[in-house]
């Protein structure tokens, strides 16, 4: 019922262009995440969907209705803000009821909806308090309550968890996910945190500098990043992106004289060309059989308990390589580690355009 269509959406402030022709269809009931570094235009894009910013070109429609010229209130949306944006002089109840009062709903209906939302979010005990008396997590719930009572056809979230501490963030993340599943309302969620994006979204849009880098499911983005940017952005610790030269027969990527790896399929078209090779830290393995074609000298080791991170560099070139080994592995600074990787898990990007090569 509430599909969102973005059709060549452009936005500029005076001479400064912020969004360049964004195309996307968000399906009914879908939870999508817009993710990107700060300043990439993701919040602007969300605000154009909300109607808080007018777009300069293109078309936005919500539920088959073009909303370009509609006010935020007419778009049948609700939004949750980063700083909660609770009205400080109103009680929790009034915060949630304000929008309903403006729409002229009956008092009984307002009460029913607010109480229902309060039950859903377990904030019934705080209805009489003012936002000042609530903790960060409670405020976040009230902000979501204010969105729910509107019974909108679209939820918009603008980095709602970034003000919470790490533990609470994980908890609220799950709650938002469950809530969205239960209500089945189309949701657009903006974040700069790739873990949030991967865990919450059915589909993700990776935005960079106002351009869409890639659209896809979290797994697609992880397994087949379309660009070097997405490759480095998705995944933690981030993917090793290393300069290499494709050998004359196109079968090998050579980092330096002693370090190279075989490709899953030959790339004769790229022979002798400079490319960027992407290796995820968790896909690199230590190979003790000495058949490996590459090895690093370890500079630093980090023990995380569940994993061990080792940082080192190839002999003969100064590229830093990180690898992530499962469990506690005893590695010392200065060790030489022979490495190997499943050729299917090697990502190759054109160094000039940043595009994936296959």
């Amino acid at each position, binding site marked *: 019922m509430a599909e969102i269509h973005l059709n060549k959406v452009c936005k500029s402030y005076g001479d400064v262009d912020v969004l360049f022709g964004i195309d996307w269809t968000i399906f009914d009931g879908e939870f999508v995440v817009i993710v990107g570094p700060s300043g990439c235009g993701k919040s602007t894009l969300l605000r154009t969907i909300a109607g808080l910013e007018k777009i300069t070109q293109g078309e936005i429609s919500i539920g088959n209705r073009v909303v370009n010229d509609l006010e*935020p209130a007419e778009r049948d949306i609700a939004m949750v803000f980063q700083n909660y944006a609770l009205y400080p002089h109103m009680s929790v109840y009034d915060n949630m009821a304000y929008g309903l009062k*403006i729409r002229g709903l009956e008092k009984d209906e307002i009460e029913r909806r607010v109480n229902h939302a309060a039950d859903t979010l377990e904030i019934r005990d705080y209805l009489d308090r003012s936002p000042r008396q609530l903790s960060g997590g409670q405020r976040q719930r009230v902000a979501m309550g204010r969105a729910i009572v509107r019974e909108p056809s679209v939820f918009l979230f603008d980095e709602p968890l970034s003000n919470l501490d790490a533990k609470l963030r994980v908890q609220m993340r799950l709650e938002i996910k469950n809530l969205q599943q239960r209500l089945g309302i189309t949701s657009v969620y903006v974040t700069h945190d790739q873990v949030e994006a991967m865990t919450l979204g059915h589909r993700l849009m990776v935005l960079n500098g106002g351009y869409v880098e890639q659209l896809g499911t979290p797994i697609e983005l992880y397994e087949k990043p379309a660009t070097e940017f997405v490759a480095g952005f998705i995944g933690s610790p981030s993917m090793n992106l290393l300069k290499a030269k494709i050998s004359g027969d196109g079968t090998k990527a050579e980092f330096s004289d002693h370090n190279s790896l075989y490709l899953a399929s030959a790339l004769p078209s790229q022979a002798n060309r400079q490319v960027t090779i992407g290796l995820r830290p968790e896909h690199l393995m230590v190979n003790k059989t000495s058949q490996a074609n590459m090895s690093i000298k370890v500079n630093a080791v980090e023990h995380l308990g569940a994993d061990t991170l080792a940082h080192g560099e190839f002999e003969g070139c100064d590229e830093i390589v990180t690898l992530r080994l499962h469990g506690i592995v005893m590695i010392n600074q200065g060790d030489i580690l022979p490495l190997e990787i499943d050729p299917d898990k090697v990502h190759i990007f054109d160094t000039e355009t940043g595009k994936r090569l296959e």
Partner: protein
Amino acid sequence: MAVASVETSIRTGSMTRVFLYLVLILFSLFYLLPFVVMVLNSLKPLSEITGGNMMALPEVWTVEPWISAWATAQIGIEPTGLSPYFWNSIKMVVPAVAISTMLGALNGYVLTKWRFRGDTIFFGLMLFACFIPFQIVLIPMARVLGLTGLAGSTPGLVLVHVVYGLGFTTLYFRNYYMAFPTELVRAAQIDGAGFFNIFWRILLPSSGPIIVVSVIWQFTNIWNDFLFGASFADLDSQPMTVALNNLVSSSTGVKEYNVHFAGAIIAALPTLVVYIVAGRYFVRGLMAGSVKG
């Protein structure tokens, strides 16, 4: 170790405190002296003042000068006392303060939350109003009042003071609202609130401190204004300050200093009351605007 040092710090602290209080009390006595002289002399018969003893306590306490100043003293040619002019001032000050504060708040709201092309230049120009001396606008203002038919009336004075105060009130509210989270305005927009609903229900309820600042500032300035009152008012709209001048500087008859003192105190009383009632918000409001803005 830590405890011991805390104790010494408290001892030296209390010593310093006693000294501080002494100095402060001395200064406040010094500043209160003129007021005390006024009060004392307003409560004694004229003969005691002309007898040459300004600083002494009254031998005969009397409120006669106060009654005279309020109700019967000769102001200009009428023996009306200050009371009609007091009400003239009230009738001028209350709407002028209310209107200039509301318009200032509205300006601040638009300049921070509904930004438009050239808004900073617009604000800069409004700030000029704060630096224009009263005397410069006298003639143009007289012309405007004449053309609008408001010359010599209380609404005319209200207009003058609103126009003159707008620069200041806009500055106060603009700085205050700069620090007001824009997300709240956005949230209200999504909740369906319009321009004025957001202003009334979201911004104004959070504007207490800055409203107090604006009211005190405007009230003091408008109440104490003499030049506009003397220039643009008729006999039936003259404010308190002009009447006080007429009372004190009349060149015929005996100078009733006790009545003059009483009159001066009456003229200063409303601003004093406003300060006492709202003063503690004054500094807080000024700080809130300046620090965050």
